[in-house]
């Protein structure tokens, strides 16, 4: 990377500025922490060891800041910051000095903001032009910092030299997402975030930014007034550790009303991640839009809208089921009820009723009745819907569950809560 700097009057020096670190000492209580005598055994003024934490002699993390020792790693989403110094090493005055810092990535060349964009009129011997450049890295892979210096020497000659500094931008996090669809149109998003840097990171923010179709809440917080995350007091992710975040997304009412949105692929939103490392060195990443594939319901979707959680044995009860035509065509449906499939329950209404025509996307409410014949948890099955246009029968079993109890018995007076099964 050395250019022909010997012939030049000016010298360019570059140093990457990661955050300074606190010096870590090794407390050894049997060695004096300061020199008390000189080489001739004469007492000297006490000099305390700067690496010893003031007030805590046994604690290793001192208050002394030290400058970065090497280039270190740089990760996508972090800010690359660098000191650039052009020093006049000669005994001559140089004029019209211009410094240009570019960052070359695999896809583009960026000019980094510099407070010295305009030429500096002159630089006297031993003086320097200093600048700190910053750039948030948004690309992986090889980056080359190109620093170019032009100036006019004392002899009036126009001079020019460049220096190159190459570095690799690495990937800090691995983000995996999974969707879980609930019967109730809600969708649960599980995000697994793995720290693939070599050091621990503090995941300050993992926020779901929902798309306009959804509203979302995060579920990885405690139920306390400040909604602290569930990750404990010290929120630190060790290298290669994976952390799970869970969100619940609900389609907005206007979206639910539009059957077009409830099919196929929709944009759920994106994750906004902020992490910090040494002395709060910051990194920030956003995922691309997360795509959800909506569950296919086939041609007909059943949703239990009303059912008792528990019913007394041998007493008729009602169930309300919404039937939605999810196909592209109009259907003409009739309902048949089959008592041979379910045990412990008997349908107690007319089989063979006509629902009538149902256009694509529209729905109707079925009100049916059953009589339980046995106690315990019973499963409602044997619902048959026949499309008379196509002569096709849709079988729906295990539509819902109901708890059947013996009335007037104290033990069964508060039965457990039962939720309907997916149709």
């Amino acid at each position, binding site marked *: 990377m050395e250019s022909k700097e010997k012939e030049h009057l000016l010298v360019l020096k570059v140093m990457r500025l990661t955050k300074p670190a606190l010096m870590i000492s090794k407390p050894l209580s049997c060695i004096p922490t300061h020199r008390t005598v000189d080489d001739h055994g004469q007492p000297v*003024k006490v000099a305390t060891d*700067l690496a010893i934490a003031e007030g*805590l002699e046994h604690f290793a993390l001192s208050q002394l800041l030290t400058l970065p020792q090497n280039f270190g790693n740089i990760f996508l989403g972090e800010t690359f910051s660098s000191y650039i110094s052009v020093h006049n090493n000669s005994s001559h005055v140089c004029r019209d000095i211009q410094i240009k810092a570019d960052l070359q990535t695999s896809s583009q060349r960026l000019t980094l903001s510099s407070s010295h964009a305009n030429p500096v009129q002159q630089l006297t011997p031993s003086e320097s032009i200093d600048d700190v450049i910053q750039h948030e890295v948004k690309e992986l892979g090889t980056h080359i910092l190109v620093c170019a210096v032009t100036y006019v020497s004392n002899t009036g000659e126009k001079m020019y030299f460049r220096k190159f500094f190459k570095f690799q931008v690495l990937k800090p996090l691995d983000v995996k997402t999974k969707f879980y669809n609930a019967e109730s149109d809600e969708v649960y998003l599980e995000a697994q975030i793995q720290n693939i840097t070599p050091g621990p990171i503090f995941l300050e923010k993992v926020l779901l930014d929902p798309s306009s179709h959804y509203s979302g809440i995060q579920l990885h917080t405690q139920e306390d007034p400040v909604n602290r995350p569930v990750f404990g007091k010290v929120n630190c992710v060790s290298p290669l550790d994976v952390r799970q975040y869970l969100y619940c997304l609900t389609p907005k009412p206007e979206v639910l009303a539009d059957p077009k949105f409830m099919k196929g692929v929709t944009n759920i939103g994106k994750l906004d991640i902020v992490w910090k490392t040494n002395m709060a060195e910051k990194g920030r990443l956003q995922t691309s839009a997360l795509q959800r594939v909506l569950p296919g319901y086939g041609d007909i979707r059943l949703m239990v809208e009303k059912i008792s959680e528990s019913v007394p044995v041998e007493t008729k009860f009602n169930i309300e089921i919404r039937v939605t035509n999810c196909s592209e065509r109009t259907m003409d449906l009739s309902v048949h009820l089959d008592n041979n499939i379910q045990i412990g329950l008997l349908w107690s209404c007319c089989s063979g009723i006509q629902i009538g025509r149902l256009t694509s996307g529209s729905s109707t409410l079925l009100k049916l009745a059953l009589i339980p014949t046995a106690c315990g948890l019973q499963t409602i099955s044997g619902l048959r819907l026949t499309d008379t246009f196509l002569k096709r029968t849709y079988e729906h079993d295990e539509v819902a569950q109901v708890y059947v109890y013996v009335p007037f018995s104290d033990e069964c007076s508060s039965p457990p809560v039962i939720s309907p099964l997916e149709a």
Partner: protein
Amino acid sequence: MFLRSDSAHSESDVFSASLKASEADRQRDAWIPSEPTRLALVNLLTSAQGSYTVPHDQLTLPGLINDDPQGDPVKDLVQKFISEHEASNRKTLSAADVSHDEDGIQQLMNAECWRAAIDLTGVILTQCGQGMGQVGQPSVHSPCSLRVWMLRISLLIKLQLFSLAESECQAFGSMDTPDLYFEYYFDQFPGKRGSMVPFEFRVICAELPQYLGKSQESLDRLYYLYAIAGKILENLRQGLAEDGSMLQLSDSNRAASTQLWTSREIRLLYAISNCALNIKDYQTAIEVLEDLLVKDVSHKVHLWSGIARTYLQMGDLKSGMHYIDLFSAEIDPEDVKLCCINQINRGFLAIGQNNFPEAQKCFQNALEYEPNNVIAVNNMAVCYLYMGKLKEALYSLEGLVQESPHLHLQEGLLFNLSTLYELQSSRAMNKKQTLLNLVNKHKGNGFNVACLKMT
């Protein structure tokens, strides 16, 4: 420093003074042996003289692994970068200049001649029959030989000669063999109980593996020591002696011992949190520091400040700020020392927020409380660099070094200064030679030349 038992006493009261001294000895030397060691010691004391000998493999048989003179790296650098003449004129204390005993070592350490001090420990240990080639050979331990070993290993750690320290420590194992107990030498120390191994020696040997990448081993060993310290405190609480025997202790005696062992327990917790910090296990480090808030109450405010720094180092500004706020709410505005620390803490917070001008102001404020606070000057210089003011940064640090080199020629500070020189111009080498001249003039042979970054 050593925990010496020589308390002041008047001549008229020699008896009670010696009793007091032996009490202090017992508290200091108390240890709980492992079961095999305890049985061996019981056998030794109860069997007819000479009829029972502890097997060879249950003894600690240490020896030097390397006794090459440690030399003087400063002198080598002076020879290389300044002149032969200057190098030959350099005179630092050597083992030959002092008495060959513990006082001699202390004298060398006081002059920061740590390398010479290591040489001297080698000389003394050779005299004790634990020199080169003596590993595995029978030798006799004494409290003195073990203290010298402790100093030697400490010095090796200080000079980052970890591998040598480790290989020499190996012979000591878990420091529990019968021949490390006073009871083993019942002729020489009649009636004396406990371990000859200084407590601090146990701590540094437990800390050592982490510097060689074996942090888990360090943590295991430190927690083992912590468990023993806890057991001793438990024994004291239950009205027993430290080692669990039925020996009657007076109340004041028990209180003194409890205080000593509590302070040792605290020392171990710091060692554990340091080890966790070294491997960036911030969770453990902070949990242990939180424990210390309860156990080491007298250092509460400084612990808050330490916890804050740990959080900031980890990146959690909000938690760091919480502890910094606790600190500032507690301190007396008249206490300049604490006010100065408070400003330094605020400076760290500003650095966390990437606001270096604000941080620089905080460190400047700290100097108003304590104008001679070197940490504040150094930290301010660091901020100047991030503000694009290399010249100011250099000016601050050079000022410190020029003004009182004997106080300020210290590793961290010189490391920063050398880094700034490298950034400033191609004449960094000349500037570093000037520093080396100062080091040559003011520093002993223990100086870590690596911070000058000359090679």
